[in-house]
């Protein structure tokens, strides 16, 4: 076995197995491909699926970025980035535009992605029908037959109970008019970015041992009703650090007196704007 | 309209060791359009059996039984259902109670079943109920709670709602007061006048004399009992 092939932590056989699953997933967009998920040196729920997909994709020339909820500097992101620095020796970055592979947990970066990039999602539960239909055999049959009435039952229940579709993350989508897919727990604000994306999008679920994918420029539609159309929502505020009004915001409680601030969930995007001289409500003193 | 030749009927009682009970042998009769024929004979002689065979709930076995062109010995259930819906009516003194359905609807039912427009069917039902002296305040109620006499009159109204070419009457005037009895006899005469073939059982001799053109004693069809 050539050294190049077993590059990046996984043994050659595993890598081949995962790459086959990835190719199949890309060939059938939105379809969940089973794969023989391996033990990773981290607990399930910490991105073992994403790590296996990333490891299967990496080549020595790659520049890797890892984000957790949009941030490059949280524990999960830092440890996965360090893991690949040590096991693959690839270059890493926090800049979205410089990265060739981006592993993400629960966000799509604000900066537009390009055809040279791969976005790898960490997925906890890949089956969008899971909480509606607990039998795996039945959900697979439903996918096979595109028997998706049940998915709208969930949205119907949302509206009946809350007056609007209350699902705000992991919002189900229809891929190329065929498979209903769970886009992983990204906020529904990010859903429009799934569609027509120039980058390859790969979804890895380690515990559930499933991979699904969206090839570049795939048509992805968020499910909705004609009279309750899908709305990609965000906090009605601007970033207090960079002043951005159109980016997805995190709400941060700053004291015990109800003080709070909003800041971009995408730290790279926010830092880039600050460096370019944009300022928000709380950033005057810092400049 | 009703043609019967050499019709026989026996019951095989499998639950009692396969005993065969002959009840009718060599029955023959004929009822033409506009004619009313009364069946007579002692109780148990086979009047009801013959009526039921014509209605189709007793199976005809040998012989010939033709109603308005349909051979009941060979007819499929579907053909008998169509015959009952379109061409053959049955009026008994007992209302098979349909809970919760309003009286007006019970009476209009046979017409609606033939696809008649609702307003027409209900108008006809109301006219009949009026003639049979069922007070209007009862029309929207289910007949379940009515007195026996009222139920009987509702049932007669129902039986005469659709102008069937063939009518079977099973003691239609039994236990009616003179006024309503006269109405029923009128209805029978009207049916005859429009050309219906009527076969009836009337215990009430005066009624029989009024409407029946002929009498047939079914005692002649009773099989000779093996001793």
């Amino acid at each position, binding site marked *: 076995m050539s050294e190049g092939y077993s590059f990046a932590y996984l043994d050659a056989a595993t890598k081949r197995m995962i790459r086959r699953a990835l190719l199949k997933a890309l060939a059938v967009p939105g379809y969940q491909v089973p794969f023989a998920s391996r033990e990773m040196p981290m607990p399930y729920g910490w991105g073992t699926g994403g790590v296996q997909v990333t490891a299967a994709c990496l080549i020595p020339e790659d520049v890797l970025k890892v984000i957790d909820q949009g941030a490059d500097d949280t524990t999960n992101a830092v440890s996965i980035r360090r893991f690949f620095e040590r096991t693959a020796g690839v270059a890493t970055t926090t800049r979205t535009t410089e990265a060739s592979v981006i592993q993400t947990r629960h966000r799509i970066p604000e900066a537009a992605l390009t055809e040279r990039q791969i976005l790898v999602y960490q997925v906890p539960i890949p089956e969008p029908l899971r909480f509606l239909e607990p039998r795996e055999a039945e959900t697979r049959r439903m996918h096979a037959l595109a028997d*998706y009435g049940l998915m709208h*039952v969930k949205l*119907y229940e949302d509206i*009946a109970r809350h007056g609007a579709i209350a699902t705000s993350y992991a919002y189900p989508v229809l891929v190329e008019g065929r498979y209903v897919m769970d886009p992983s727990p990204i906020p529904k604000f990010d859903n429009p970015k799934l569609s027509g994306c120039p980058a390859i999008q790969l979804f890895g679920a380690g515990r559930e041992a499933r991979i699904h994918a969206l090839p570049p420029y795939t048509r992805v539609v968020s499910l909705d009703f004609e009279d309750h159309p899908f709305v990609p929502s965000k906090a009605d505020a601007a970033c207090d650090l960079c002043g951005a009004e159109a980016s997805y915001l995190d709400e941060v409680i700053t004291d015990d007196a109800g003080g709070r601030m909003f800041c971009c969930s995408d730290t790279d995007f926010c830092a880039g704007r600050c460096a370019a001289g944009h300022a928000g409500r709380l950033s005057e003193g810092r400049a | 309209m009703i043609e019967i030749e050499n019709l026989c009927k026996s019951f095989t009682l499998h639950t009692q060791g396969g005993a065969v009970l002959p009840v009718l042998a060599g029955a023959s009769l004929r009822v033409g359009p506009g004619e009313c024929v009364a069946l007579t004979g002692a109780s148990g002689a086979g009047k009801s059996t013959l009526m*039921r065979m014509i209605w189709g709930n007793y199976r005809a076995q040998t012989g010939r039984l033709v109603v308005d062109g349909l051979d009941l010995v060979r007819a499929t259930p579907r053909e008998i*259902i169509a015959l009952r819906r379109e061409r053959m009516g049955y009026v008994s003194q007992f209302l098979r109670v349909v809970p919760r359905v309003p009286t007006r609807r019970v009476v209009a039912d046979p017409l609606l079943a033939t696809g008649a427009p609702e307003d027409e069917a209900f108008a006809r039902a109301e006219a009949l109920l009026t003639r049979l002296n069922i007070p209007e305040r009862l029309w929207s109620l289910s007949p379940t709670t009515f007195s026996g006499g009222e139920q009987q009159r509702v049932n007669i109204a129902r039986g005469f709602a659709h102008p069937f070419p063939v009518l079977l009457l099973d003691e239609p005037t039994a236990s009616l007061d003179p006024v309503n009895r006269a109405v029923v006899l009128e209805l029978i005469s009207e049916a005859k006048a429009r050309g219906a073939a009527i076969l009836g059982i009337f215990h009430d001799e005066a009624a029989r004399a009024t409407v029946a053109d002929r009498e047939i004693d079914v005692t002649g069809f009773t099989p000779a009992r093996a001793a």
Partner: protein
Amino acid sequence: MRNGAQGRIWTKKKPEAEAGPLLQVEGLGKHWGARIGCAEVDFDLYPGEVLGIVGESGSGKSTLLGCLAGHLSADAGRIHYRGHDLRAMGEPERRHLARTEWAFVHQNPRDGLRMGVTAGANVGERLMAVGARHYGAIRAQARDWLGRVEIDPGRIDDRPRAFSGGMQQRLQIARNLVTGPRLVLMDEPTGGLDVSVQARLLDLLRELVREMGLSVIIVTHDLAVARLLADRLMVMKDGRVIEAGLTDQVLDDPQAAYTQLLVSSVLQV
């Protein structure tokens, strides 16, 4: 959801005056190993007709119904629905059929309802499954149907758990009839209900059958139910049809020994 499996041939809803039978069954059989589930069953069902299947437990009536519904796969014979061979039909077509033109009412409403979602969603599911995507319209239809099965439309957002057994059964019927099916299969629909609740349900079914021109196959061991609803009866024993005919003829003048026994064991039908 538009895809190849749907919208093929079964788009019309109301049965128009059709001359031919809706369902034709020939020589249908199903074995459980060496035992007969049902065998050599033949019948035709015409539009607007109600066929009762009676027999005691284990007589094969539920197996037969299961084969007709596609829940079980028959191992002999033919089932033709409006000219289409059901046994040769693919699963997607069969499912589409099952949620548009066919309906199945289970004995236990819990088997036919989604207990975890509201009454409105239960009724609306079949609509959404065939592509309804207007919340207001789905809800209006659900309300309308709750009213038709005599459930207060104000309870549209209650879950079936909060309903009595009779209401659950009526909800199951609404859920099945909302897409205006042609053929309804019922397995002991009045099974676990009190007599008074049963009567109400039977009346409702009768009315709907006529109003919608439904063809119905109803499996029951209750001869009174059969008498009230069915135009025709088939009596089954040991997996075979031993007698068939007009309902009142089978009940008033039963020919087969077993049917006589069955009828005479009932107090008054």
